[in-house]
């Protein structure tokens, strides 16, 4: 893909407000094609809110948002699903459907796009194998451990071969070893050219990732992690 005038993601002086509460304002950010970025910052700083702008879960209160070269304000409602299909999301709360198996949860985006089981079965199985859940394909989501659920959520986020992968605290509820495994999955995807943006305050994860780190605190974005946080780890 050629360089896009607005990068793969660009926030142009955006603001998010909930009623009276301004989470951030006048915030700008640009992510290049194929980059691997971690967004960190204290809880409640607005990381999830920022990511939601990018995966079209909410509109900005002010400013412009470009995703995959498109100004989101100019994307008609009836067209947005096409853009969403090119963005993989690992939601903060997993967003797995409890009545579905690991297999069906991963296959969900493909089914929603109208694919039939015979078309997607192999891809889904390969992906579950890749995330190390080959023997859990038929397990229902609630029977999986936190780490397993995270990996199902990651598999679901990438099954549609997205150009942009967004993950909100993907190592939030897993131990250090699982956190390392999940990081290696993201690094592998990054090598394959997927643009990745992860919200995390997992210090080990950040340090080992080799990713660009940006920090959101007090409504402002700064480059690089605070040295103090990295030392503490």
């Amino acid at each position, binding site marked *: 893909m050629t360089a896009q005038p607005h990068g793969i993601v660009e926030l142009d002086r955006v603001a998010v407000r909930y009623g009276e509460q301004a989470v951030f304002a006048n915030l700008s950010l640009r992510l290049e094609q194929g980059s691997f970025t971690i967004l960190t910052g204290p809880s409640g700083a607005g990381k999830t809110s920022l990511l939601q702008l990018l995966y079209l879960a909410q509109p900005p209160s002010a400013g412009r948002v470009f995703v995959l070269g498109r100004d989101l304000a100019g994307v008609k409602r009836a067209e947005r*699903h096409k853009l969403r299909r090119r963005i993989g999301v690992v939601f903060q709360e997993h967003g797995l459907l409890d009545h579905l198996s690991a297999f069906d949860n991963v296959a969900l985006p493909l089914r929603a796009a109208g694919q039939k089981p015979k078309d997607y079965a192999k891809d889904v199985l390969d992906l579950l194998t890749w995330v190390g859940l080959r023997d859990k394909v038929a397990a229902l989501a609630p029977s999986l451990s936190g780490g397993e659920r995270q990996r199902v959520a990651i598999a679901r986020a990438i099954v549609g071969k997205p150009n942009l992968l967004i993950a909100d605290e993907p190592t939030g509820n897993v131990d250090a070893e699982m956190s390392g495994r999940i990081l290696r999955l993201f690094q592998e995807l990054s090598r394959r050219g997927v643009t990745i943006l992860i919200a995390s305050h997992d210090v080990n994860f950040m340090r080992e990732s080799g990713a660009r780190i940006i920090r959101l605190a007090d409504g402002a974005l700064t480059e690089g992690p605070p040295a103090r946080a990295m030392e503490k780890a």
Partner: protein
Amino acid sequence: MSKDAPKALPILPAKDGRETPLFAVVMILCFCACLAGLAALAAGRAASLWTAGLSTGVTVRVIEPRDPAKIADLAAAFGALPGVTEARVISEAELSELLEPWLGAGGLPQDAPIPSLIALEVDPSASPSSAQLIEIMRARDVRGEVDGHDRWAQEVLTAAGQVRGVAFGALGVLAFAAASVVAFAARAGLAIRRDVVETLHLIGARDGFIAGLFQWRYLRLGLSAGAFGAVLALASVFLIAATRPSAADRDWLLPSFSPDLLDIAAIACAPLLAGAIAMLTARVTVLQQLRRKL
């Protein structure tokens, strides 16, 4: 399909225990609506029975003059009235025959002051009134009486119409209440599935795809719950019909509660309606929910 892939489960669970109350509500409402519908049909039938045949005949008794030509003339004048399909002078032979049970064979005494009779066949809905008929006789200097059962025929017609009106009105009200409650219950049922709507929306499903999942599911739910209710109603009515002592001589008064094809056809509509309402509600509700999202 790869041999190791598990069978794909429906995106919406085939059975959701949380939908049991919705199923029960639709079933009960359908049951009530079917009973009301059957009652309305039966009341309508009873009302038809009351009025059938009673008001199609009007008898005019001519006392004076006895001149057959004048009477024939009068009959022709009646026959020309709108709403009168036939006006016939009853012959003496016929009269004797009619009176035989009272007067015995041998017929009428020659000098008995037997009035001449004109039998009118009228269309009960457009029949001329007794007053009109008397007015015509007066204009021709004829003295006579109209066997005026048209007054009470009119009353019976009115009463029958009221019975029908009330029965179908009640059915209408119940159907409307049932429809509202089904819609309300469907909304409540959908509220517990917001997670599915939300997730599918964010992973790139079209609104129509999401609405479709719910719409077909609720159509099925409405149809099956409605069918249960309808069958239950029909069974109850058959039970009533079977246990009621045979009452052929009272059928003209009591609503006949032995369901016929029309009843069964009407009852079959109830589940279809319940299914359609549930389906439409589901579609509209989901699309509304989605429209509030980006």
